[in-house]
Every structure is written in C-alpha cells, then in structure tokens.
C-alpha cells in the first residue's frame, strides 16, 4: 500500500470490518508507518473514551431496570445489568474457587478518586473474584495519601493486557500503576513526546507530559475483558490479545450492587 489509508479504512480495520487481505494490508502498512500507526491508536483511544461515556450514561439507568437481569454468579441474586462479556477464570486464585457453571463469576467494585494535576476524576475499578472475599481493589478515598498532582490506581493482578490511557493530564503530573503481590508483569509505556517512566516488577511510575500516554501492562493469567474508567482522564482497558478489535471496543462494566466498594 503506497498511499496512506483514510481514517474510514483505519476505523474499519479497527472494527474488523475489512476483508482478510485488506486487514493484512492495513496492518502491514501501519507497522511501517508512524503516522498511520498513531492514527490507529488515536481511533482506539477515541472509541474507548466513547465506550466510557456510554458506561456513564448507562449508570444513570433507573435501578428498576436491572431488577430482572441475569444471575451471573449463580448465587440466586441478580446484579445490575451486565454490559460486558462474561469473564472466564482459567485458574483459581490462591484459595480454591467454588465450582460454578462456566461463565459464572462475581464482580467487585472499587471507586477511586484520582487527582491528576488538579483535575479530578472518578475511576471505577472492577475485578473478578471467585468468592466473596475482600480482596478488592484497594481504592484511595479523596483524602487518602494521594499527593497533589499525583494519581494512583491500585489493581490486584488481572490477566490480559492492562492498558492505562491518560490524556490531557498536563505537565508535571504522574501516575503510578501498582500491581499487588509483586506479580511479574511486562510493562511498557508509549506515547507522544517520549514520556519518562520507571518500571520495576509489578509497578510502573509514569511522568505524564501534555500528551496522551499509554501504559501497557501484560499480566500472566487469562482474562477476557474489563474496563476501568475515569471519566475525563484515565481509561483502563484490560483485554486479551486474541479479542477482535470490534469486540474489544464494546467492553463495559459490570457492577454488582450487592457488593460495596471497599474504601481505605
């Protein structure tokens, strides 16, 4: 492909709507073309932002609407309407999980307030747990040890690729992505303007510039999809590498209203 594909073609590529040969051609071109590769990232980021917007809208649905949703975790109660593909847990965590039908799982929710360079946003974090234990995401409350201008998001290990996208944070702001248990994770950071970062096992500290920064954290287990959204600032998408672009763009959040967020 000697000419650059238009944004419509790139979007179709992201959505998996091209033919096989077309998909390969676009992928091959993007691999060698910085501008198009960034355009694709931009499209994915915009799509992810829009997905987050819909999550916020869906959150405003009347509680009565979720009164008759499916019972995903087999406990006889239904949670709020599901918007994600069910997660499959391939291996039990430290404690054995009770036997459940395939596809059954339980969600926990944590709410994290993030301050990035003075801009506040709420991150709603979700992780899967096999039993109702309290190994939740440990969120920071508004007056926890969050320094001004510093954002922190703590997640216990999840599988797949944890991608934190932050934009418009402003110079001088920093973000820490910390994995509990010191799980060995592959961490990479990319973004325009060569953001500075330090990575140690299980943790990455990123200095954000004024540009979009993406942090990729690859975790060892198998997880399908989840999304952690901070409306306006940070967006975290966890996806398995094999998920198609179209499916990856339609992740959402499952909130089990029976579980309370654990606040520090």
């Amino acid at each position, binding site marked *: 492909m000697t000419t650059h594909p238009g944004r419509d073609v790139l979007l179709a590529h992201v959505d998996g709507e091209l033919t096989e040969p077309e998909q390969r051609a676009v992928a091959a071109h993007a691999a060698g073309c910085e501008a198009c590769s960034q355009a694709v990232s931009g*499209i994915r980021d915009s*799509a992810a932002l829009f997905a987050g*917007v819909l999550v916020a*809208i869906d959150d*405003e649905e009347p509680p009565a609407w979720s009164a008759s949703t499916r019972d995903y975790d087999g406990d006889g109660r239904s949670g709020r309407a599901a918007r994600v593909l069910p997660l499959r847990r391939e291996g039990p965590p430290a404690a054995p999980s009770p036997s459940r039908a395939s596809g059954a799982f339980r969600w926990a929710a944590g709410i994290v*307030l993030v301050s990035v360079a003075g801009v506040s946003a709420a991150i709603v974090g979700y992780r899967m747990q096999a039993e109702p234990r309290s190994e939740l995401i440990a969120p920071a409350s508004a007056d926890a040890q969050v320094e001004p201008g510093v954002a922190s998001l703590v997640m216990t290990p999840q599988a797949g690729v944890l991608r934190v996208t932050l934009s418009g944070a402003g110079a001088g702001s920093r973000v820490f992505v910390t994995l509990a248990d010191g799980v060995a994770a592959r961490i990479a950071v990319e973004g325009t303007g060569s953001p500075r970062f330090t990575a140690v096992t299980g943790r990455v500290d990123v200095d954000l510039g004024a540009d979009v920064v993406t942090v990729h954290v690859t975790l060892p287990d198998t997880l399908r999809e989840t999304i952690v959204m901070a409306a*306006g600032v940070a967006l975290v998408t966890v996806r398995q590498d094999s998920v198609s672009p179209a499916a990856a763009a339609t992740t959402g959040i499952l909130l089990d209203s029976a579980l309370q967020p654990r606040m520090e």
Partner: protein
Amino acid sequence: MACVQAGVVEESPSVPSHEYDEWLRELRRYVHRLTGDPDAAEDVAQEAMLRFMRAAQERRVRTPRAWLYRTATNIVRDQARHEAMQRRRPVPVDTDTSATPEQDLERGEVIRQVRTVLESLSPRDRELLILRESGFKYREIAGVIGVKTESVPVLAARALERFRVAYAGRHR
C-alpha cells in the same frame, strides 16, 4: 402492552418469547443512550416492539434487529423533530450510601459533562457511535440509519473525530 397480553409474543416468527425480554431491555438501553431520558426510553422501546411484532406477523420483516432498531431510531428522530420529547436531565439518585460527598459531586459533574458532550453531537453522529459501540456490524448500522454500508465507516470516523473534539472541550 396490548400485543404481549394478546399473546402475540408467542406467535411472532421473529422473536422467540424467551428472547423478547432481552431484546426489549437492550432496545431500551439503546434509546436511553440516545436520549438520556429513561421514561422516553421505556415508551419508545415498547412502541417500537409493538410495531415490530405487528410487522413480523405480517411477514414484513426481513432483518429483525435492524428493523427493530430502525423503528426505534425513527421514533426518536420524529419525537425530537416535533419537540414532543424534552431531553430531561434527571438529578442522579444516589443509591450508593457508601459514597462520600466528594464522590457525589464528582459523579454529578461527570454525568453532566458526558451528557453535554453527547447532546452536542448531531443525532446521526450519536446514533452511529452508539450503534457501533453496541456491537452492530456496519451492514446492520447502515440498515438502521438508512445509508449505504460503505458509507458507515466514513460517517463513523468523522463522528468519532467530532466526538473526540467535543469531549476534549467539555470543560468549557
């Protein structure tokens, strides 16, 4: 809903009765995403389903999902055009008693900004992006909004860009 009470659900060739609830719920979510109005979403979803049932009975439906969503989309467009549907902004009801005041304020502000961004888009941009994010294929999207399939990525790419710009400027 008269159709359901008359047992049309069981007789419908296009929607198995056990999927009816699921279809209605998803349609309702779609309209809520489009309008931000839960009452309107209920009404429109019911009305669209009613029309769909009748049309399906009369064997007028070839692509069920597209037909249903096109009907709902058209109802929304008509009502918006006639200004019969005011886009209300209900005050978020706090059902989570563990939220702190800071989080309440945060959440209210977030939803306000998000709604403003969505409403700044044209109806078609909104429909396009919501349908795409809801997992519809381009061909289905084309059937719902009434364009050629090959136009969908062109229109959607522009809509996504307009959304990005609107979103970036949401604090103003």
